[in-house]
């Protein structure tokens, strides 16, 4: 897949012809399906809405099929995870890791925080949600109140209203989705406090985010680079390596020249010494 950013880059390429040469190799940069970034022209990514509020009147179905509004669920700090439940890799990885972190998190579930996993696949139904809920609650090895982790499904309009509010942009590709991977921390009043990128949240970061959420303080986004689930192809970057090789060789050549100069030139005779002798 040709990297779309190149289209934007071409303008500058025109100005700097020599850089064009370098640019050629980047046409072949391989990309993983789960690459996320905020300015991907295809629209996948996260466009942070820190400090804004999620619409609390949105209604979803809970695992039992009962309709609930976000208002009813959000009254503690919230860990919101937009996923799709039959996701074959990163979503389940995220939820597994989250279950593991919750196991170790020094905070009381249902009182100090709650987890809400919202499926952004409108075709998924509460029975699948219930099945997933059982699976993940089982992974938490300590007693965990059922209400502290909710799995919601809903219709397309509501899903999009929520994902737009949190700036979470995804795209359907057949059965599956291309989408970013992140936890979003909300304050008890629905304010967006922090984005935690990647499928591997750290208990410490999560704890700090929840403390901030309980106080309604907005936290800066950290560890943004984690969201790049990128794979790197050294062959595609041959030119960069060649550049390094050339500069390295030139440096070493001059260093060698310098050593030769020092060895062959020897000690300098002082004019005075020469006179004395």
């Amino acid at each position, binding site marked *: 897949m040709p990297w779309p950013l190149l289209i934007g880059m071409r303008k*500058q390429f025109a100005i700097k012809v020599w*850089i064009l040469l370098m640019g050629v190799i980047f046409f072949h940069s391989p990309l993983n399906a789960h690459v996320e970034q905020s300015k991907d022209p295809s629209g996948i990514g996260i466009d942070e809405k820190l400090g804004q509020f999620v619409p609390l009147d949105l209604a979803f179905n809970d695992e039992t099929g009962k309709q609930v509004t976000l208002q009813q669920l959000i009254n503690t700090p919230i860990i919101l995870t937009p996923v799709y439940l039959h996701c074959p890799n990163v979503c389940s990885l995220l939820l597994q890791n989250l279950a593991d972190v919750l196991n170790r998190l020094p905070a009381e579930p249902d009182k100090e925080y709650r987890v809400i996993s919202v499926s952004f696949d409108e075709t998924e139904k509460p029975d699948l949600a219930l099945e997933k809920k059982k699976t993940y609650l089982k992974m938490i090895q300590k007693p965990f109140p059922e209400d502290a982790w909710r799995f919601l499904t809903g219709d397309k309009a509501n899903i999009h209203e929520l994902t737009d509010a949190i700036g979470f942009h995804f795209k359907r590709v057949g059965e599956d989705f291309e989408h970013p991977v992140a936890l979003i921390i909300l304050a008890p009043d629905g304010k967006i406090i922090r984005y935690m990128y990647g499928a591997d949240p750290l208990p410490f970061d999560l*704890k*700090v985010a929840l403390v901030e959420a309980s106080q309604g303080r907005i936290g*800066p986004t950290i560890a943004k680079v984690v969201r790049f689930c*990128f794979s790197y192809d050294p062959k595609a*970057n041959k030119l960069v390596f060649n550049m390094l090789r050339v500069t390295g060789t030139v440096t*070493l050549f001059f*260093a060698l020249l310098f050593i030769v100069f020092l060895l062959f030139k020897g000690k300098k005779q002082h004019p005075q010494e020469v006179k004395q002798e």
Partner: protein
Amino acid sequence: MTSTGAAESIRPRISFYEDHGRYRGILSWILSLDHKRIGLLYFIFVIGFFFSGVVLGFFMRLEMIAPGGTIMKPRTYNSLFTLHGIIMIFLVVIPAIPTIFGNFFLPIQIGARDVAFPRINLLSWWLYISGATIVALSVFTGEGPPDTGWTFYAPYSLRTTVNVPLAVSGVFILGMSSILTGINLVTTTHRLRAPGMTWKRLPLFVWAIYATSWVQILATPVIGITMVLVFLERFFGVGVFDPTKGGDPILYQHMFWIYSHPATYIMILPAMGIVSDVVPVFARKKIFGYMAIALSGMAIAAVGSLVWGHHMFVSGQSDFANLLFSLLTFLVAVPSAIKVFNWVATLHKGSIVLEPPLLFCLSFIFLFSIGGLTGLIQGALAPNMHLHDTYWIPAHFHYIIFGGMGFGLFAAFHYWFPKMFGRMYNRKTAKIAWIIMFVGFNIFYFSMLLLGWEGMPRRYYDYLPQFRPLHLTATFGSWILIAGLIVMFANLFRGLFKGEKAEDNPWDAATLEWQIPSPPPTENFEKIPVIQHGPYDFKEFSRNG
């Protein structure tokens, strides 16, 4: 003629302060080709930058006195630790000893009248000032000071809207200055040694500067190239480090550390040289294991250039690379330990005189040992997973850089002060300042070690309530440390103007700089001395004789 006889044969002559050369006033300094004047120029600016770094550090610690925002916004905190790092690393600890004391004393210690390339020496200083000015400009212009941390890690440094390009250009120019100083001092050591000054008779300070200079010459170009690539990527969108453009952020980390790890040896090796020179003088004993110390310095320079990957154990580099870098890290501890054992062996059964320079050197040995041993802990793969990016890491390198290099630098201040300025500071006050700093330092940084061990992440603006007691202790320690610094510099400053006149050789040292007047004349030596004994041969300098 012997080097010892030189002192008697030198008639009183005007010092380099009175001989202002072709220019008058300030021009006689900033256009001077005299290595001593250039050394003092660096001296003034390095101390100035040191204090701005200290002030930044002071405010960082003050912010961390309590959880949550205390006196500043998170972004300000990010800028503070970045600027503290850039200023302290690139403007203070890397250049300090080679440019101040290397410039001033290396030529004298080998019996030369100046460095090999006096004009390039002046150019180095101008490049240093230009680079420093550009770094300073980055603070006040654009969308704010850099907030990347001193490491400028990509891809964040490629995207942040603040003034990274200017800071990066400053670092590039400082690198050129560093390379030129290295070339100058290596050439001086090779070509300008006095007759009889064989490699085995070089003072160990010269050996240390020599090893350091090679690292400066060979490693600094890498950071230069890295900074150019960051620059290209920011302005022209070339994808070298940014994964969204097909670049590799790990490549950035490799290139950055290929320079910056050896750079820590650029910082510490010269300080080791100072300790090796000072310890025998105040133990009144020949140094134990001269060649071992000299060659271990070269070994540190060589092996230390191959350990950069230990900064990257959690970056995703291969397991094989991790193992190899961990092994090399353990190996580089060996020559460091050789030095420590040799210094201690030199003190053993010596006639120890506890003057201020020796006190600073003793604390160097103690603090450097803590720094070195904590380095081994984090150099092992398993503990590194736990300690990575916690307070442990900054605590460790402050033990090395401040406890080691800093205290070494202060030892040099107190050791060479009478030679450089012809006056003596109050020795009692110097000892008081030393004990205050030593106590404050340990309260400060040992608390940070403990914080790191308990999991406090570095560079965080906020922390959990459980860390509060140790943060409070660390901040308290920083105040003691700063109080000690103020006493020390006030004492030196007072000595500069009101101190009693210093003798030519107040410490009864045997190296060449003590055989000429204090302060030295412009040409250093009336006649180039012929060297007939080693640098630590104190027989002719006994207290009674």
